[in-house]
């Protein structure tokens, strides 16, 4: 990655590799454990259909609400579906929804922030103000209102989560772009006769990519939490489809009667995945903060 700050070093300086810098700033253990768990989650999710798991959506009326056993590691739920298998399959649902909503948010937020930061003035003011108002909207509640109006579909859930990611990225990119506006290499590009949009997309946005990538896992963590929260109140994911939030919801009523396994296991998976994503975002941010 070519950036403004590193290309001016003397010839004898060899920039340490990406991995080296990551390990130096965070220690071997922290990096290995967090990336290891994330990798485990992702590969379990990808391999779920070929792993020897029980059918995650097959009800069994003869075998409902069974506590964890050798046959059903995490027990069975209200309809007799195997909770272990459902928890694993839910990785697919949650991670896919979260990642796609975050990617949409990036695709819209990054150019928006770059343009508002580069042009400044009235346009910048308007965009900044609108994004601030968006952020003031209560997430779960506005999500509810939007989905109630637009229809209870997965697409709408992804859209509403993406909508909350736009201001995050536009703000961040804007803060990177503003100080770069008058830096020499940008001026050089301008003097050479490049149109503004080329300058923004080819010369300025690449500088914002490191913080954007450091933010990505954090946004995914929020997105997973929000998607689970929305499906907990019955929005988006329909019940037989394995998803952590709706699984917790099914188990919620049994918690007071001491049947803990329905909610605890999907909740643990949700908690761990969000935690690991948060940690990884912190680890990646160390790359960024060292340079500023």
């Amino acid at each position, binding site marked *: 990655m070519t950036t403004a700050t590193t290309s001016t070093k003397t010839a004898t300086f060899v920039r340490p590799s990406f991995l080296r810098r990551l390990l130096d700033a965070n220690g071997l253990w922290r990096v290995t454990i967090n990336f290891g768990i994330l990798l485990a989650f992702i590969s379990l999710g990808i391999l779920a259909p070929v792993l020897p798991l029980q059918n995650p959506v097959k009800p069994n009326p003869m075998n409902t609400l069974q506590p964890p056993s050798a046959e059903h590691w995490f027990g069975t739920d209200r309809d007799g579906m195997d909770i272990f298998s459902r928890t694993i399959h839910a990785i697919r649902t949650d991670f896919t929804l979260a990642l796609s909503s975050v990617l949409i948010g990036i695709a819209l937020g990054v150019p928006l922030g770059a343009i508002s930061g580069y042009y400044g003035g009235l346009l910048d003011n308007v965009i900044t103000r609108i994004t601030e108002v968006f952020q003031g*909207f209560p997430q779960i509640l506005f999500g509810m209102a939007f989905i109630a109006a637009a229809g209870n579909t997965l697409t709408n859930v992804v859209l509403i989560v993406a909508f909350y990611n736009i201001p995050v990225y536009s703000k961040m990119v804007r803060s990177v772009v503003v100080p770069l506006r008058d830096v020499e290499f940008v001026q050089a590009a301008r003097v050479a006769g490049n149109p503004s949009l080329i300058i923004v997309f080819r010369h300025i946005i690449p500088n914002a990519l490191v913080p954007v990538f450091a933010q990505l896992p954090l946004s995914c963590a929020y997105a997973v939490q929000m998607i689970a929260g929305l499906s907990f109140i019955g929005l988006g994911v329909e019940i037989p489809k394995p998803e952590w939030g709706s699984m917790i919801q099914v188990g919620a009523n049994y918690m*007071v009667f001491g049947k803990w396994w329905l909610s605890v296991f999907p909740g643990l998976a949700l908690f761990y995945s969000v*935690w690991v994503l948060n940690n990884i975002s912190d680890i990646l941010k160390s790359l960024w903060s060292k340079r500023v």
Partner: protein
Amino acid sequence: MLETLREWGFFLGKRLAILLISLVLMSIITFSVTHFIGNPVYLLVGPRHTQQMLDNMIRDLGLDQPLWQQYLNYAGNLLQGDLGVSRYSYNPVMRDIRSRLPATLELSTFALLLGVLWAVPAGILAGSRPRSRFARIVDVIAQAGVSMPSFWLGLLLIYVFFAKLSWLPAPLGRIDRQYRTIAQVTGWYTIDTLWAGNWNAFVSSVKHLILPALTLAITTSPSTLRIARSKTEEIMQSDYIRSARAFGLSNSTVRRYAFKNMLAPVVTMIAMTYGYLLSGTVLVEIIFTWPGLGLYAVDAMNHSDYEPVMGVVLLSAGFYLSIYLLADIITALIDPRARVTK
């Protein structure tokens, strides 16, 4: 003196203008969602309707008027505090909201207090000794707290303290049934029961409040903690603290200097947390059947009753923006640098 007054005038003027613009933008967004995305007409006329019924309903709702006229009607109603009528309870949404607001306010205020009480001291301590074991433990707790889904944590607490230990009452509402007749003065049961001098009722209300408040405190306090921690760390390494130490000022004096500078960002974060809490209680309210705004909105949504949901959204967004303004003013009171408008 005059200079300070002018400074304050500019500052407050700008802030208020921003608030006003934000409120207008907010109403445009909610207006767009209600008018472009959803179409309440079909819900109102039901599935078996004639074209005549549809036309009448459109005229009754004023949907045949030009768009700007519709928006002005909408904004005018909002200004008069008219959020529409609930199609389920047949009450004006504003009245329903007013009767449920104290429950949410009580819960979020206690959650905020619980969170701040531990997060600020812990953050300062961890920040002044950033390499210590204590700081590391605090980091882990904070990270775990943010990652915890609030509705799941609430369920775990219910399982432990109600289902297993039976120390606390069932997660059904704000107070035991027999005390529900207590005179409503503020709408806050913890205060009203004390006002009535009914100690048992007070204990009952606290027992009902403690788990939802704790749940929210654990999940929302880490952001305050992190700000307090990183600001303290940053300030303790700054030049003026080093100078103060070099002058031989006592530790307590140095700490006082540092504290004053750390306060402004921490206050902002606490205010933002409070703004978030008012709507962020929704999932926890469901778990504990806490009859507040969130539960009201969810119930309304389940009855395809649209106006209450939008009313609660508008109210919490407005509350968030106002609290943000308040935080800016407090910051300006604490830190003169924040008053200078560019």
